[in-house]
């Protein structure tokens, strides 16, 4: 190893200035990894528009805001509008499923409930379950993944095998049986509040291995790095190394995969509601609306299109944003 070059006095200060003559000093300030990623992300128009869409969606599905908007357009999501549907066939009166300024997405066949406000209220359920379930997965997956990757040995074997078993589980079947056996009142919750809690728990619990695998793999490679050796040689305990040294280096991949897990979980919730074990009617949910549409698509095709597009656009926006985030944080995968 060569000794560091010693530059003393005026020479030390003079050198950079000489190199940088005429360059604005501000322009070459050191940037953190986060700042670099943010700069890359800002240039990704698709990712930014997806993010804007999602932020708008989140704002309109906040409790106070949804009521305010549906008060102006659409009305209550559970109000029957019998004059708007054909009394004999049950289909909405008018073109495109009865779309009008009052009912921009048309009305439901049979009972004429406003689709716009049902979609808005359904958005809240989808986002809530998608995000909370992802949080559950991230917490379980991160803790188990980091422990498996760091300690290795039998701990790793046990956790890795558990993940394999989880991935081979017939998830949908399990989820529907679980929702089916849990009584209507449980742990002080009831109705759809209980349903949401159960769905969050089930979806989150079954999806943790996706995060767990990634965290485990990354931890295994980080474990061998010099800064971990350095920390250990200074007497740091495993807990400190795990959560103060290694975990901060995992934020980027965890953030990316969490963003990509949210749409998967939204689809899962929609699928369960479609199968009749998600949110209970009359409360609106996107999957539940499609479930009703299985019998009504011939009378009112818009009843398939509207909730289906809501799912599609939301899930696509999360996927596009997640992809953009990944490209920004780790350009090699592009």
């Amino acid at each position, binding site marked *: 190893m060569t000794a560091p070059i010693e530059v003393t006095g005026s020479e030390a200060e003079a050198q950079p200035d000489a190199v940088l003559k005429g360059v604005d000093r501000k322009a070459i300030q050191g940037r953190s990894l986060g700042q670099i990623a943010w700069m890359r992300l800002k240039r990704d128009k698709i990712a930014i528009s997806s993010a804007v869409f999602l932020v708008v969606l989140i704002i309109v599905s906040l409790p106070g805001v949804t009521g305010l908007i549906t008060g102006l357009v659409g009305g209550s999501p559970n109000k029957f509008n019998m004059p708007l549907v054909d009394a004999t066939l049950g289909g909405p009166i008018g073109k495109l499923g009865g779309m009008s300024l009052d009912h921009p997405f048309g009305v439901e066949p049979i009972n004429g409930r406003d689709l716009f406000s049902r979609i808005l209220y359904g958005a809240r359920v989808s986002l809530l379950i998608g995000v909370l379930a992802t949080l559950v997965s991230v917490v379980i997956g991160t803790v188990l993944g980091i422990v498996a990757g760091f300690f290795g040995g039998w701990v790793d074997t046990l956790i890795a095998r558990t993940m394999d078993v989880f991935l*081979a589980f017939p998830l949908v*079947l399990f989820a529907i049986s679980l929702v089916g056996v849990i009584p209507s009142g449980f742990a002080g919750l009831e109705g759809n509040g209980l349903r949401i809690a159960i769905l969050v728990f089930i979806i989150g619990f079954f999806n943790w291995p996706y995060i767990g695998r990634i965290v485990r793999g990354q931890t295994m490679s980080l474990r061998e790095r010099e800064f971990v050796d350095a920390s250990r040689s200074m007497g740091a305990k495993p807990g400190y190394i795990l959560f103060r040294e290694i975990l901060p280096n995992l934020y980027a991949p965890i953030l990316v995969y969490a963003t990509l897990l949210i749409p998967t979980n939204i*689809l899962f919730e929609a699928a369960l509601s479609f199968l009749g074990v998600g949110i209970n009617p009359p409360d609106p949910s996107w999957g539940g609306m499609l479930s009703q549409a299985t019998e009504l698509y011939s009378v009112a*095709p818009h009843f*398939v299109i509207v909730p289906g597009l809501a799912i*599609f656009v939301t899930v696509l926006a999360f996927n596009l944003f997640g992809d953009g985030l990944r490209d920004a944080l780790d350009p090699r995968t592009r």
Partner: protein
Amino acid sequence: MGAVGLLLIISAVTFGIFFLVPKAAGVTSDDLAARFAGKTPDAATLEAIKDRFALDEPVPVQYGKYIKSIVAGDTYDTGVETIDCPAPCLGYSFRTNQPVFDEIVDRAPVTFMIAIGAAVLWLLAGITIGVVSALRRGSVIDRVSMGIALAGVSLPVFFTGLLSLAFVVHRWQLLPEVNYRGFSDNPFSLLLPWICLAFLYAALYARLTRAGMLETMNEDYIRTARAKGLPERTVVVKHGLRATLTPIMTVFGLDFGLLLGGAIITERTFSLPGIGQLALDGIYQSDLPVVLGATMVVALFVVLANLIVDILYGVVDPRVRHS
């Protein structure tokens, strides 16, 4: 060994879901028997159910009895008559009084045809698109097909399925109704379920294949293969694709196994009477033996598909054969 272990774990968890969760929520064995029996059970049926599942015994004993009857068969008293159930005995449905095993065998052709047809389509489409996109990285073809693929993974089957039913079948009448009940029916009436299911998976596999190919085509041995003058076709197919296929086969084993055990959402969307629909009906009606049986069958298929994939590894990747 691992296969049997997986089967045991999955059946134990299913068992836990049906017996431990209600118990933890304070449901008594009488309530449980009543729930399994349906709306208005008589005392004899309740006793038969309690006896059948040994509901008054600890859960591990119940589980042991269940596994034993699968391996060795069982005879039991329904309260009316004594029924002999040969191995593999998955019990009797409380609703139809049919052996669960027979019901599953009856439904299997529908599920198999859905899964096989879709799998052929999605493998062909997904892998081809993935390879072409990787080789023409950044080109118009790559961008368009990856855009479609991203849209594809965001489109659930119950949306594309209902959409195609509403328009292709009902509005435009381009295809006849989707109707398939067994091997004697025309399998091409399953075209729409195949396409809808395959679209989702093809999108997923195209993304996987593209990522894998991009990585492999940068390996040193690809350069070596090119340097020794092999035609590009050989380099791509024999050297590049072959290495990329291994991880894709792992994913395929899981996906295909799960589908063979019941394409629940596809079956529900198109009202097809497959194993998934059977399990779903079992859940709606708390017909526990049916649900347990269907879950066991899914687990079996996942395990079998994984075994076959492990064997195929040796064919695709010679390194596996030697070790």
